[in-house]
């Protein structure tokens, strides 16, 4: 099946290591198979030959197996390691490391050649039907290369971290199997050479996300969260599907290659292209947690924390950004759609940031922060700053992974402490933390780096990427097709200015809530409890190691794409790198507009930095960690704070307005009403009943009286004679 044929021998990458691109996803898939087999074989207890007889002799039941998977991470299990822990710890991260190595080799090979056309490796025919010819094919170009490096790189770090974090979990091999499978699908997503193949990865990562969110499935909330994630994502996938249908019906191909020319058939800014882009964006709102489909992401924190880091921060949720960057040629033809993307991204950024202000669960804060930062990325790709969007995607991957893993090691420490004292308090609530700096100095330091990065304090990574996005928004508001387009009657430049202001506001809020999180977690007095305090300690090296690497990346990641304004290193590395993929689209979006003047740009940067600094200062000035009490003793919040804490009641709104009505209508109207009532009751059983009743009446006429019979006979005679004589 994998009879990879060497494509386009003329391609500069054809003879390099790139021809093994299929090995990239195959490695994690292999890891999945091995780990999955180990997980199953360890868990399985093969049943008796005759299962229906098995009910009676249940004495063979083993209680240990009954509690194979436990409810909440780390509380009630014996700390014995899984019997396959050794081999799993090798295979799980090992395949990732190998994939990362391979990716680096490809990257080097790519750097060595000049490459304008993407490298496409056809593997096999997938769906050859009539004029629809979809192949299983991988496309390696600059964009997918960047994504592959992020996925395998950050992925490797998170896998290594997980070895420590999940060490005592009885589902250890299962965890790594899912994680490997996720990486496989993620690589498929970014490497697929056509939309359907991307869709495979797209849904595949959603599936793994579902499995991992519900990893501790014995708790209903976790299972609910996983299901919610999958279903909400499916709503988005519906958009993705329709976009593909539109694309095929109007353009005739679903391959990236040749999409640019094929799309030229469509009128610029026309309905069709706009619809295609908007439907793609519906897909993005699902996968990348934008308004209105963001609701699953905060709940997704139910999964193990490294999962949140990998899937719900660094990679999967950014797939939407990748999709738009990948489809930049289409989006650049649809200004209205692009404006929508930017606006929705901006609104999401602000909206999520406000909720982040009032969350107590450390992971929820980070979750809303992720939603907010994803909003930034969409602002970037929405305004045609594709490179900036991808750049923010990358820096975000670094610092958000760091934040999540850092919070993971905090939670890990909290758990251990609670476990040691048999306390069942919430290990993720910041009200139960405080002053952890003293116990976990490394984590503390690294998380501060990440916080500064996300807040946009120079020279940390986030500063550069965020600034580039905001700068581009400002520039597009002044010139280019976006500024002249209108969205729902509002001129484009107005929309973009609003987006810009929103961006600044969100930056302010970001600085505030991140600082708040750091203060409540690491500073002030400790609120964990006196007995527990003795057990608080820094995580082992296998967990802090990856943190350090990410810390370095968060600190210096900005160097990968320095603006012209700051000549402290190589200028615009990433921009040049991505030029062959998104260059045309970017140029089209920029229009004839000139660059913003350097002075203006300095002002913009100054404003951004000032806002970040103000935000952090406000947080430091206003928040009083000493006044906090433990979660169990905390009063319920009031007023708008309560609204924020309950996330504007959006979940409740969705439940009342959509979920419950659908269930209610399905039950009472459709099932009991139409199915059982009308179709079955009225027509099926009804007609049977009527026939039966007629039969009963007929048999009553059969009275046993000869006289009656004779009467009926004579009536029949008269009728017949009537019929006969009337025929004349």
């Amino acid at each position, binding site marked *: *099946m994998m009879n990879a044929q060497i494509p386009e021998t003329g391609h500069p990458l054809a003879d390099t290591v790139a021809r093994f691109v299929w090995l990239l996803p195959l490695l994690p898939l292999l890891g999945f198979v091995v780990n999955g087999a180990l997980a*199953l074989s360890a*868990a*399985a*207890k*093969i*049943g*008796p*030959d005759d*299962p*229906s007889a098995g*009910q009676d002799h*249940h004495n063979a*039941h083993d209680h240990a*197996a009954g509690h*194979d*998977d436990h409810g909440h991470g780390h509380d009630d299990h014996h700390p014995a390691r899984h019997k396959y822990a050794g081999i799993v710890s090798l295979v799980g991260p090992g395949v990732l490391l190998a994939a990362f190595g391979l990716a680096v080799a490809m990257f080097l090979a790519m750097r060595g050649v000049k490459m304008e056309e993407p490298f496409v490796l056809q593997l*096999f*025919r*997938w*769906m*050859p*039907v*009539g004029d*629809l010819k979809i192949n*299983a094919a991988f496309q390696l170009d600059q964009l997918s290369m960047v994504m592959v490096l992020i996925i395998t790189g950050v992925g490797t770090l998170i896998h290594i971290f997980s070895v420590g974090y999940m060490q005592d979990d009885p589902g250890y091999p299962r965890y790594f199997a899912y994680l490997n499978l996720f990486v496989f699908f993620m690589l498929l997503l970014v490497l697929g050479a056509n939309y*359907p193949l991307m869709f*495979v990865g*797209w*849904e*595949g990562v959603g*599936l793994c996300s579902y499995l991992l969110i*519900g990893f501790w*499935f*014995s708790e*209903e909330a976790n*299972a609910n969260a*996983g*299901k919610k994630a*999958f*279903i909400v994502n*499916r709503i988005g*996938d*519906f958009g993705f*599907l329709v976009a593909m*249908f*539109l694309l*095929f*019906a109007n353009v005739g191909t679903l391959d990236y290659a040749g999409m640019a020319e094929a799309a030229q058939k469509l009128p610029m800014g026309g309905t069709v292209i706009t619809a295609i882009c908007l439907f793609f964006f519906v897909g993005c709102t699902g996968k990348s947690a934008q308004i209105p489909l963001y609701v699953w992401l905060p709940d997704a924190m139910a999964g193990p924390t490294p999962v949140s880091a990998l899937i719900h921060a660094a990679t999967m949720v950014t797939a939407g950004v990748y999709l738009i960057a990948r489809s930049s040629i289409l989006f650049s033809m649809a200004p209205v759609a692009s404006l929508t993307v930017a606006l929705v991204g901006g609104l999401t950024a602000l909206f999520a940031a406000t909720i982040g202000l009032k969350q107590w669960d450390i992971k929820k804060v980070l979750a809303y922060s992720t939603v907010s930062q994803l909003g930034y990325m969409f602002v970037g790709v929405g305004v045609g700053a594709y490179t900036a969007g991808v750049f923010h995607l990358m820096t975000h991957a670094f610092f958000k992974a760091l934040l999540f893993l850092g919070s993971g090691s905090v939670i890990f420490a909290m758990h251990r402490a609670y476990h040691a004292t048999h306390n069942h308090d919430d290990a993720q609530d910041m009200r139960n933390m405080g002053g952890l700096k003293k116990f976990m100095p490394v984590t503390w330091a690294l998380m501060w780096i990440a916080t500064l990065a996300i807040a946009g304090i120079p020279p940390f990574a986030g500063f550069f990427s965020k600034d580039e996005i905001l700068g581009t928004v400002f520039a597009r508001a002044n010139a280019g097709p976006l500024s002249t387009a209108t969205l729902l009657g509002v001129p484009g430049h107005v929309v973009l200015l609003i987006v810009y202001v929103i961006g600044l506001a969100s930056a302010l809020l970001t600085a505030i809530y991140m600082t708040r999180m750091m203060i409540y977690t690491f500073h002030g007095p400790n609120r964990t409890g006196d007995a527990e305090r003795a057990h608080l300690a820094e995580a082992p090296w296998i967990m802090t190691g990856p943190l350090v690497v990410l810390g370095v990346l968060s600190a210096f990641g900005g160097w990968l794409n320095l603006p012209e304004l700051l000549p402290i290193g190589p200028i615009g590395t990433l921009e040049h790198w991505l030029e062959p993929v998104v260059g045309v689209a970017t140029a089209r979006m920029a229009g004839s507009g000139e660059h913003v003047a350097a002075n203006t740009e300095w002002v913009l940067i100054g404003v951004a930095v000032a806002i970040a600094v103000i935000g952090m200062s406000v947080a430091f000035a206003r928040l009083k960690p000493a006044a906090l009490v433990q979660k169990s003793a905390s009063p319920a919040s009031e007023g708008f704070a309560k609204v924020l804490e309950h996330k504007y009641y959006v979940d409740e709104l969705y439940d009342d307005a959509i979920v419950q009505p*659908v269930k209610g*209508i*399905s*039950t009472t109207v*459709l*099932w009991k009403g139409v*199915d059982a009532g009308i*179709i*079955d009751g009225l027509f*099926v059983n009804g007609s*049977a009943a009527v026939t039966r009743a007629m039969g009963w009446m007929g048999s009553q006429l059969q009275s046993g009286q000869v006289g009656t019979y004779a009467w009926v006979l004579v009536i029949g005679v008269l009728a017949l004679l009537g019929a006969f004589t009337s025929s004349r």
Partner: protein
Amino acid sequence: MNSFLDSIGYNHWILPVLLLLPMAGALVIAALGMSAGKNADSKTPELRRIVLGIFTLEAVLSLGMWWSINVGSADWQASFAVPWIPAWGIQFSLGVDGIAMMLILLTTLLMPLAVLGGWTSIREKVHSYYALLMVLTTGMLGVFMALDLMLFFVMWELMLVPMYLIIGVWGGQRRLYASLKFFLYTMTGSMLMLVGIIYLGTQAADLAGHPSFAYDQILHNAQLSPVAQLWLFGAFALAFAVKVPMFPFHTWLPDAHVEAPTAGSVILAAIMLKMGTFGFLRYALPLFPSAAMDPTVRTLILTLAVVGIVYGALVALVQPDFKKLVAYSSVSHLGFVMLGIFSLTPQSVQGALMVNLSHGVSTGALFLMIGMIYERRHTRLIADYGGIAKVMPVFATLLTVVCLSSIGVPGTNGFIGEFLVLIGSFRSQPMYSVIAATAVIFAAAYLLWALQRIIYNPLTKPENERLQDLNWREIGLLIPLIAAIVWMGVYPAPVLEKTSAAANRLVTHVQQAGNMAGAGMMGEEIK
């Protein structure tokens, strides 16, 4: 492979052998049962092996068709004909095209698994049960093979009685109601088709006035006015619509599915539901193209198909009984098939076939797995489970895979069919396609919710704590299905290529003939 098959004359004998082998098996088993007399049930273990042997032989024999059948040819393949009732123009004539071949393979390959699935659950009157199962197999295969409309109808009806008895004798609590409902519903549908078939036969009569029921003869000779086509189409469509089942003719399905024993549900869902769509493809569309292309008819059927898709999914969502849930999901899935068929584009038709096959595999697997837990817990209510992934990890894993396939997650077979149907139908019927596409959301909702309530969530019921995981037989019979799910999802091209020629011929034939008839009508109006 091909030369070997040629050397044994495979194509000459394969169809009659496949058709009659189960029938012969039924006779042998019935004879065994009679000779064993009152103690027949004590011979069950030996009997099961014989039955499995026959079905396995059948499956192995049928596999050769994958290579031997030239799916590209416009002629019937492996055709076989002997005169049956020459006085009435009736032949015992068999033959297949790519579409029929795939459905035959689905049947022959699923039957051994269905038998294995009910391995220990049938304990009474075992001989009769297996004999009926075999007759049923003959009927199902006959429907796919028949090239004579009378033979087709005979086979079509032949399936009813064994299934009626299988549900009614070995079924659940409300088996009497369900079995009668199943029988009468289906029979009502097919009775008008009987009139239609005979009418067609008399229309296709040769110059001497002898009727003919040969498919090709009717296809080429019957001169039907557009109005007659409409009526005949209606008669055939009703029969097929009940079998599909299309909304609103679907209400027999949940009852039949729920009450049938495992093998019965599997066969019903995986194979018998395919008869209806096969009927549309083989008969209703090609024979009455102008009716099939009639805008009103198409609108009606497409609407019903789409309503069925959404309706089935919504009703499935709130079912407390897992079997019923899957039954309603079948309504939804088969709606996709109908949408694909009546959208009449190469992609949609082939997608419809693919949905057919993958629905057979996935829903078959689902029913098998429901049977497995039912055998352990004797309840199908979702609420009686919960958290059993803890005690039955293998079951939970496999059930998840199967559910995902039924949801249509890419990488599984379910995706390919739905995707092709939707992308194909979007070209000709965009609105219907978009509405139908919402089913991807609902499908995820009802199956994942059910999955959660069965294998996830806390394990609270003490009865469930003692559940035993699957045994090797059960794992073994599910593995081929899982393999098919993955194979058809990852590398469906070989399957698609088997059906492409037949599907394309159908699309062109119906469109051309329909357009010609339409043009003819218009011409008459102008005159």
